[in-house]
């Protein structure tokens, strides 16, 4: 589901004329590997951060998201990495 300009409070301007129109959105570009991108899509679907934050899914390694969720996202990714790591040796 794509967000539209009004949803993200973007009231700046929309380029328009009768003939030529371009859509303009503000946010944050995220670059990551494909596996991590699937994780982001999963978080988005289950609204784990409290709301949907992906503005647009660009390609295999890039996503465009809301600016305000950056911190929580880093925390979530950190938690995922912690869950997947195991202490190597006994002390």
């Amino acid at each position, binding site marked *: 589901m794509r967000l539209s300009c009004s949803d993200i409070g973007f009231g700046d301007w929309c*380029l328009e004329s009768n003939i030529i129109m371009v859509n*303009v959105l503000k946010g944050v570009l995220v670059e*990551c590997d494909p596996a*991590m991108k699937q994780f982001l899509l999963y978080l988005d679907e289950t609204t784990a951060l409290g709301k949907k934050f992906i503005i*647009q899914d660009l390609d295999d390694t890039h996503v465009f998201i809301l600016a305000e969720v*950056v911190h929580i996202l880093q925390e979530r*990714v950190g938690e995922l990495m912690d869950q997947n790591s195991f202490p190597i*040796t006994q002390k």
Partner: protein
Amino acid sequence: MKLRVQLQCKNLHEYLKELSPEILDRLYNHPATCLAVYRELPPLAKNYVMRMLFLDQPLPQAAVALWVKKDSEKDHDQCVSVLSGLRLWHSQQLQGGLQGNILNPVFKDNLRIALLGGGKSWADQGDSLGPDRHARDVESLDKYALERWEVVLHFMVGCPSAAVSQDLSQLLIQAGLMRTEAGDAPCITSAGFQFLLLDTASQLWYFTLQYLNTAQTRGMDLVEILSFLFQLSFSTLGRHLREFGLVFQRKRKSRRYYPTRLAITLSAGVSANSSSTAMGATPGTGDSGFIVVETNYRLYAYTNSELQIALVALFSECLYRFPNVVVAQVTRESVQQAIANGITAQQILHFLRTRAHPVMLKQNPVLPPTITDQIRLWELERDRLQFSEGVLYNQFLSQADFEVLRDRAQGLGCLVWQNVAHRVIVVSPQGHGEVKRFWKRQKSHT
């Protein structure tokens, strides 16, 4: 989206290149400086300088180019850039209209004096003082030097026993290695952590360069200080330097100064092999490295120096401590904690390599690949997501519109990402205003 500040450690040449030409020329007025700079040159450059030292006329560039074989062109070019960067030579038109090279006359004269003798004596007053009743031998000088330097490092790590003068702590704050907030005691910054893990020669250089930078604000003459430093490494003299451990002065008022090994290595410079035996001694250990790293992530540090133990504890968890050895473990948490403090994986590995025990040095590579790879992977874990703020443009009605806007953004240098197939671009927020104005102008034309 924080940037991690990397500690830049310049060597003598890079620092000199940054000075203005007038200061450089005044610097070259001292034979000691010329000799020190000459010693730092790469071998081919030294050769060139020697060949041109006694020529009074410029030499055609074509002739200089003939001095190397065809396949060493790269070395020749590198040499030329080094010599020009340091303003050791410049081009001059020859009579036939060709371009020639001639050595900087100031540099030339002073290097001749340095090599052949003559000029003012560098070690002034040394003989007139007579034999020293409290003469110190080399060993105790070394010990003194290392002690003083360790006190400085201890102070940075935060050991309560270390105390340094106001001047020195001001200098540390100005160098960005420590930070003080509203009257509290200074505490260390992430650049400070990186500094701690460097080897001693690099630390010395960085510190001295910072001191030189602040010297100008104190009204001390940069040229005097620099030439004094170079003289120091060839003979004697110092006051702030006493505190760094670069010189030993028995009382503040005594007229004798003894340069210590630390000062001599300053002149040898950072570019010299940092594992060479002349500099070899890492503080607090004697002659050799003292850390053994095993493939099970255990670390054994054969030392009882508080400073070294504190440094090892920066990135590992200490398990046991005995009178002569400390056992620690390198874990994901401890490494990530260090990285959160601003240390990079490269620095941790450099620290381990430079202080590796002789037993470790026998194996190749020195550190087990599992350990080096894993430390790097733990660092990369934090970088799995890369964020950049931007403005997304999509739904262009025609390919031509897309290309016009894209090219404009690229021309301004603010294009962050594009996808030609879907006609989508992302522009940085700084460039967005300009691109918007451009687009409005575009449309009003059509």
